[in-house]
């Protein structure tokens, strides 16, 4: 199966392969480099596909490690202000589940966000911060910042920023770069084996 993909989508396919959702050996990836402008819009520091045997470059292609992925300039400094920041965005949520439907990494047949056990039915906006944090935590070691969630969100909630911060923690705490290598085991899969990794 030939698949055209950006670097983030390529990393996403790596994560899907690790979870048995795609057969990596049957994929033929055609990578597409993003331009500097595109990388800047996405605040992406890894705009170049690394696994695809065929890569279409986009001169002038974006430099690796270029624009910052961090939250500086978007997220307030103080913790209380950050809480307010996320509360403000959460209250705009119309609970359309677009972020779940659009997410290539959301493949669970039974979604926690659609279970009345976790999310009260008929309540809009959804409970803060549980609703968005459930999704964010499930994105640990999965989200590759393709921004599909952000682009479909009618409330324009900066979801990718939230998932990126989880991804940053996963990298800092477990040394796991999401989608970076086919061999590394995602920390959430490892956690099932107690004591496998200190």
């Amino acid at each position, binding site marked *: 199966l030939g698949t055209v993909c950006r670097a983030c989508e390529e990393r996403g396919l790596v994560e899907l392969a690790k979870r048995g959702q795609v057969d990596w050996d049957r994929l033929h990836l055609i990578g597409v480099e993003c331009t500097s402008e595109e990388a800047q819009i996405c605040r992406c520091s890894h705009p170049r596909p690394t696994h695809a045997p065929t890569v279409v470059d986009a001169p002038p292609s974006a430099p690796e490690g270029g624009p910052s992925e961090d939250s500086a300039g978007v997220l307030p400094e103080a913790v209380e202000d950050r809480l307010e920041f996320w509360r403000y965005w959460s209250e705009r949520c*119309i*609970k*359309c*589940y*677009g972020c779940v*439907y*659009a997410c290539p990494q959301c493949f669970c047949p039974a979604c926690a966000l659609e279970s009345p056990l976790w999310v009260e039915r008929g309540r809009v906006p959804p409970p803060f911060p549980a609703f968005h944090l459930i999704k964010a935590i499930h994105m640990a070691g999965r989200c590759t910042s393709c921004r599909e969630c952000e*682009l*479909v*969100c*009618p409330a324009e909630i900066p979801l990718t920023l939230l998932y990126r911060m989880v991804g940053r923690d996963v990298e800092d705490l477990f040394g796991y770069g999401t989608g970076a290598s086919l061999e590394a085991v995602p920390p959430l899969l490892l956690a099932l084996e107690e004591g496998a990794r200190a």
Partner: protein
Amino acid sequence: MRYQSVLTICPFCGVGCGIHLQVMDGAAIGVLPARSHPVSEGRLCAKGWNAHAFLHRPDRLTRPLARENGELKETSWGQALDIVADRLDKIRAGTGSDTIGVLSSAKCTNEENYLLQKLARGALGTNNIDHCARL
């Protein structure tokens, strides 16, 4: 296996968001938002994301039914319209036009909704007309 992505309009409300219906072997299996659409710009609400869900439901009404001796029976459009016209006529003659109410639908076009209010006000003689498109 034949897959098609059909660009169309969400049938639910008056906004008219652009959707791509995902069609597999003639059956609508999903919805994707249309990013090129000037109104919705690739965004949808919960109803839009599920706009395909009612299409193939087995309990969906596809033919007119008339109640006969308390039981719903399939009938022709001509007969169904005759029954409705006859009953509306009787109600109007009995208790008056203001005892009739008309409910329109967000699934209709503007033009169809206009025609229905014309029918309500002009033919039935009532101002009791409403719809679910006032979201």
